């Protein structure tokens, strides 16, 4: 690569990075200074940064309740996802009569966006008596087909001789999954955790429909009602935004290496 293309690449990437980061920077800056809400022109660097907007956000909404609700649902979703997807993915590495049908059904289900089913899903959840409950919010997200296939292709990338050796070593099929397959598929596990966590944590429409009382509200619902009652004229709103975004960011940043590797391993084995 020539020097010129390298420099051009850097310039382009830096420019894009600035565009990507500016909104994030702007929120963080406002959340620690409360500037730019009323005044014009805006200041680029925060004056007198402090954390008191976070204190305000914390006490203005019942932050602990929102957070624990969201976290409980996300943890439930992530754990169940890992179990169900790994199990289904492992089953799909095997040959059995009806496999084609199962694959067809899963691919067809993948073609149905969840949003296209919200009305009956809502009615069904009501029939199950799960409206306004954490289980009701979590249930539709208990498995992600993308992640099933991710596990499937990761498992298939593991040499079959390892599985056979384990079988001869005396492991039951279930133990092969837990002791051999899963430890060797850490990237797939990481990808699954990230995706199911982000999707559960950030989901808004479904809780909006299912949740009826404030004590079951999740973070995005809390954020929207905060916005409704305080408008966007206080630094606390942006402090709240930061707090809301932080957990999924953190999970992503921690697991991003495995996350990308998980996707790659999946894609190598077509």
């Amino acid at each position, binding site marked *: 690569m020539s020097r010129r293309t*390298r420099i051009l*690449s850097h310039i382009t*990437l830096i420019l894009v*990075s600035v565009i*990507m980061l500016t*909104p*994030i920077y702007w*929120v963080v800056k406002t959340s620690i200074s409360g500037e730019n809400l*009323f005044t*014009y*022109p*805006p200041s680029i660097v925060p004056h007198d940064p402090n954390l008191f907007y976070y204190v305000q956000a914390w006490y203005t909404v019942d932050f602990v309740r929102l957070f624990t609700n969201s976290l409980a649902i996300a943890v439930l979703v992530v754990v169940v996802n890992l179990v*169900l997807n790994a199990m*289904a993915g492992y*089953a*799909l590495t*095997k040959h*059995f009569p009806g496999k084609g049908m*199962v*694959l067809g*059904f899963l*691919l067809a*289900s993948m*073609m*149905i*966006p*969840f*949003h*296209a*089913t*919200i*009305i*009956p899903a809502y009615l*069904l959840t009501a029939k199950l008596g799960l409206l306004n409950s954490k289980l009701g919010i979590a*249930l539709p997200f208990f*498995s992600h087909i*993308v992640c*099933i*296939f*991710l596990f499937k*292709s990761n498992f298939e990338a593991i040499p079959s001789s390892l599985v056979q050796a384990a079988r001869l070593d005396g492991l039951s099929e279930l133990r092969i999954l837990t002791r051999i397959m899963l430890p060797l598929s850490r990237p797939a596990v990481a990808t699954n955790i990230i995706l199911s966590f982000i999707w559960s944590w*950030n989901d*808004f*429409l479904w809780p909006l429909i299912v949740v009826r009382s404030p004590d079951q509200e999740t*973070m*995005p619902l809390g954020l*929207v009602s905060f*916005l409704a009652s305080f408008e*966007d004229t206080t630094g606390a709103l942006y402090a709240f*935004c930061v707090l809301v*975004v932080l957990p*999924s*960011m953190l999970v*992503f940043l921690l697991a991003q290496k495995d996350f*990308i590797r998980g*996707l*790659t391993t*999946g*894609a190598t084995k*077509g």
Partner: protein
Amino acid sequence: MDTPSRHADDRKTAVVAQRMKKPFLSRKTRHLAFVWMLLLPALLVYFAYRAVPLAWNVVLSFSFWAPGKPIRFAGLYQYQELAFYDGIFWEVLKNTAIFMLVIPISIMLALALALLVDQKITGRNIYRTIIFLPYPMMVVAVGIVWRWLYNDNVGLINYALRSMGLISRPIAFLESYDFALAAVIAAAVWQILGFFMIIILTGLQNIPPHLYEAARIDGARAHHRFWRITLPLLRPSLFLCVILGVIASFTSFDLIYTMTNGGPGHATDLLITYIYKAAFTLSRFDYAAAMTVVMFVLFLALALLTNRLAGGDAGKVDISD
């Protein structure tokens, strides 16, 4: 067995024979039972929250029904209303189609960025992380942030445009019929760009380098290599992006809800937000169901179309993702 220690061998055999117990069910049956036991929970979820709702939706769309009322057959009534009496529906449909510009825009940008980041340049991991960073952010928060960036009095975008001398008076992007949809599209691109870039990047990294080396020896120039090797081999990744993009554009509820709530008028209402309003604010579940069926049919048609364009390998791609 003609070894001298025959006696000892016999004893050992007995022990072994005892340990090699024959199980109750045949191996085939046990294998099958095990596989279905693994599959069942996941399949149940999809059955309950995909297959059943889809059928239910179709039934609802041919009925008159509201919560607490008996269900009556309506024939094509709901669809007739959609097609002939609800002008907003057509506007919403148009908006949804325009909103799909998110897909080509972000895929092209993502492809360019992926190619840049795929080079061996210092800091590429940092660039990659930064560009992906918006994706994990909560869409509701993203909506709030962008709403404020677009603000006509104190918004950063207006400030930037004004200080660059591009506009003389501030524009109220989200209150303008001309700009609102474009503004929402820009925010959507900003968020999903990094996700597409990662998908394309993994596709790029799976292209064996010796293909490029061979092409280079064969005398192919850089742009030949891109059109003849990179792009064809990226087709599965690009197809995946399109499908995910189509899903995202049909389901971009959160962003619209927080940024404009469909306004001004219905200038930024998408199918999904309109369905939500019909069902959960007007309680017209039957009508909303009919719209959902339309949305699903459109989605399916688009998915099949892209699959056709991608060379008819949908199954393969979906498995490889």
